[in-house]
């Protein structure tokens, strides 16, 4: 009994520590995973989010928008044909160990990240021919080809200046224990002071930050194994906000609970159907058109996602420049009559239906994927002229199968590498990008068009080119856009300053507690 009493006292102490928790610390829960803690090799949104908050770009976005704004560079300019970009660096910026930010540091970083050849190195090597130090505070990027949207590419972590006195030049780092002082310090608003993989990361305000001081001194990022546990932790008051990813049913429940605020943020994440266009049954574009006509977006958006996604009628997301709803105007939704007309023209009938395998990956896109595949199958089979064999494979297998052209029709999703319509189109219908995504679509006319839009900064010209691409898309149908995801962030009502715009950049320094 005495022992039990002692245990209760100790547990009570733990409770009292919890109660004494000051409002200068925010606990944030996620089911995401962190990869290598090095911008030379990390290529996932969650690890990049950690870089956004501990390092700074040369140029960034105004929080919550897609508008570019100066950061470590106070200004930038392109030459006449957008083949050279010159950045002027901010004076007096230092890393936490006192190393000053100079043009040499920028060049050292870019050369390092390109040479290490990590997963995102293509964001440098595909575009940059050379980095030149003009003077200590001026750096020039000479590109391989003119690229109008290069500033949007520079916003990405492989371009973030690293401290040459802390980071090794010849290898990328896996975790913080390999850094001096075991602290991830950059030029950003926060520094990481404690890191336990898959458990938690502690961010503390960087006292030598060049910009505005963060509102919250300490952010604790807590990792959860699954969405259900994370939801329960939020309800139990263990975390202040959760982001990526809750189940649709959890979001639906929490949005009815006045103790929480559900923020639905426009996201550039899109989902679509891919066709293997070079060897499979879908080599014939008419069959691709028939499938495009049968898809019923409002139906699965409601049935599978409880209305938490938005139907998408172009590969370019809604709200982005040059977007046209060409799939809506051409095919509509669940247009069985149009599909049957095409299929009958190809000789298919109820007794001789068009049969194919439809593939999905059951866990990579969350718990809803199997439901999505089932509902899509039901939508497509609304006509007796089509028979779908549903098949699934885990992500590692799935990727190998699309490279081996083993999946005639498969479901994929896309987070952009840079916020420009080019990243939503050339990546799927340009010869190289299309091959990488298992679509294997190739047409010299399309490649020429992509090359033109990439090299011009003229708005009217780009608008015309992207309108043409979207019109061609409904004829050739290399992919069928399905929906655009919202980013859902659930928080306690006293958390403010949540600003995540289309580029998906979540800046913790904007967060605050309501007084």
């Amino acid at each position, binding site marked *: 009994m005495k022992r039990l009493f002692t*245990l209760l006292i100790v547990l*009570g102490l733990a409770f009292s520590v919890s109660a004494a928790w000051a409002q200068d610390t925010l606990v944030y829960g996620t089911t995401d995973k962190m*990869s290598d803690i090095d911008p030379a090799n990390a290529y996932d949104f969650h690890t990049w989010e950690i870089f956004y908050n501990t390092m700074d770009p040369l140029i960034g976005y105004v929080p919550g928008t897609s508008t570019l704004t100066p950061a470590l560079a106070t200004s930038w300019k392109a030459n006449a044909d957008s083949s050279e970009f010159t950045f002027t660096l901010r004076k007096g910026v230092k890393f936490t160990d006192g190393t000053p930010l100079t043009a040499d540091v920028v060049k050292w970083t870019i050369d390092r990240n390109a040479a290490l050849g990590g*997963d995102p190195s293509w964001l440098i090597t595909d575009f940059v021919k050379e980095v030149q130090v003009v003077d200590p505070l001026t750096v020039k990027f000479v590109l391989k080809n003119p690229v109008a949207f290069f500033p949007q590419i520079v916003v990405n972590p492989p371009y973030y200046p690293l401290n040459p006195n802390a980071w090794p030049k010849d290898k990328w780092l896996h*975790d913080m224990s390999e850094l001096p002082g075991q602290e991830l310090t950059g030029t950003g608003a926060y520094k990481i002071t404690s890191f336990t993989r*898959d458990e938690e990361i502690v961010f503390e305000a960087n006292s030598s930050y060049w910009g505005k001081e963060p509102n919250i001194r300490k952010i604790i990022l807590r990792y959860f*194994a699954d969405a259900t*546990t994370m939801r329960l932790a939020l309800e139990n008051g263990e975390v202040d906000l959760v982001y990526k990813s809750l189940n649709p049913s959890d979001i639906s429940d929490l949005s009815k609970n006045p103790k929480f605020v559900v923020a639905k943020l426009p996201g550039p994440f899109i989902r679509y159907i891919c066709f293997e266009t070079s060897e499979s049954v879908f080599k014939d574009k008419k069959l691709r058109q028939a499938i495009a006509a049968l898809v019923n977006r409002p139906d699965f958006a409601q049935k599978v996602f409880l209305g938490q996604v938005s139907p998408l009628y172009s590969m370019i997301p809604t709200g982005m420049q040059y977007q046209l709803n060409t799939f809506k105007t051409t095919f509509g939704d669940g247009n069985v009559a149009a599909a049957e007309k095409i299929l009958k023209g190809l000789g298919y009938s109820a007794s001789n239906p068009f049969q194919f395998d439809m593939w999905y990956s059951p866990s990579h896109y969350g718990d809803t994927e199997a439901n999505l595949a089932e509902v899509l199958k039901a939508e497509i089979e609304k006509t007796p002229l089509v028979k779908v064999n549903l098949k699934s494979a885990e992500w590692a*297998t799935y990727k190998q199968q699309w490279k081996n052209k083993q999946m005639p029709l498969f479901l994929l999703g896309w987070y952009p590498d840079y916020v420009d319509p080019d990243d939503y189109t050339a990546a799927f219908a340009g010869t190289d990008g299309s091959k990488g995504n298992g679509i294997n679509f190739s047409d010299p006319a399309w490649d020429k068009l992509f090359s033109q839009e990439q090299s011009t900064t003229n708005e009217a010209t780009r608008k015309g080119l992207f309108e043409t691409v979207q019109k061609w898309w409904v004829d050739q149908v290399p992919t069928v856009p399905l929906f655009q995801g919202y980013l859902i962030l659930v928080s306690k009502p006293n958390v403010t300053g949540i600003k995540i715009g289309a580029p998906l950049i979540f800046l913790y320094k904007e967060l605050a507690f309501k007084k």
Partner: protein
Amino acid sequence: MRHLFSYVLTRLLLAIPMVFILLTLVFVVLRIMPGDPVSAMLGAHAPEKVIEQKREELGLNKPIFAQYLDYLGQIARLDLGDSMIMKQHVSEPILDKLPATLELTFFGLLVSLGVGIPLGAAAARRRRSGRDFGIRLYANVVYCIPVFWLGLLLQLVFAVLLRWFPVSGRTSPRVTASAFSWSGFYVVDTLRVGNLAAFGDVMWHVILPAVTLGVVLSGIFVRLTRANMLDVLKSDYILAARARGVPERRVVFNHGLRNALIPIVTMLGLQFSLLLAGAILTETTFSWPGMGRLLLERIYLRDYPVIQGVIIVYALLVSAISLLVDLLYAAIDPRVKY
């Protein structure tokens, strides 16, 4: 003593072919499964040249038999190799996560024994009574309950509705583990530095997962204890004790239970492997950062060396515990000699 030494040595030597067979099975199964670490780790943009380079770097372009021989050579040198996904030696994540799993398993076992043995003894004491029926029903029900479902239920009731316990993790966010973590066994580490508040927090976090794991396995111990107690209670020395007027409570718990526990100790070794298996699901339900979660995550990533390493460690752990239990059996039962 000499016999004991040769017994231990034989058991240790027998563990080698067991690990070898297990390792071979896991090695082959992993390689014949579609997908490989390269396709799991590289993004959609990766050019063929990069993929080929990576496969070569990881040795995946070699014939499977050559890969197997390389791996055996590595194991013979007691080297588990490097992770294919993360830039780390296989032992790093294992040593990092193993204490969390062992801590959870230890408390799970305590709950399992703490609930199972007294209930089993109580059932045997009043055979065929309402109490006996109720306890047997409990044992059957908990043994059938899926561990993740019980975990969710306990989370919902004791964490969300009653708010008595936390939902997940090993510590609260406000308790910085790096401030006291030394061996990875947080219960020990917090006591070592004399941080009672952190110790309380660690205990507060381990209760729900340990209860989840322990309750499910307590059903086995209820039935085992009850069956053994019923046998023991029929023994002559129990009859003699009763004839001498020893109070029934003492007869059952002091004389009967002690002797009934001997076969239960033997079962502990076997139950340990069940506890480890249950820990995989419990760790996922409670976001407990242990070996189970590590194994699941690395299976998705096809990180062959880490998966193989975790399985070797599991196999060695089960062998070591079985050996320990067998030795303990000899210590507590004078009839057993090695």
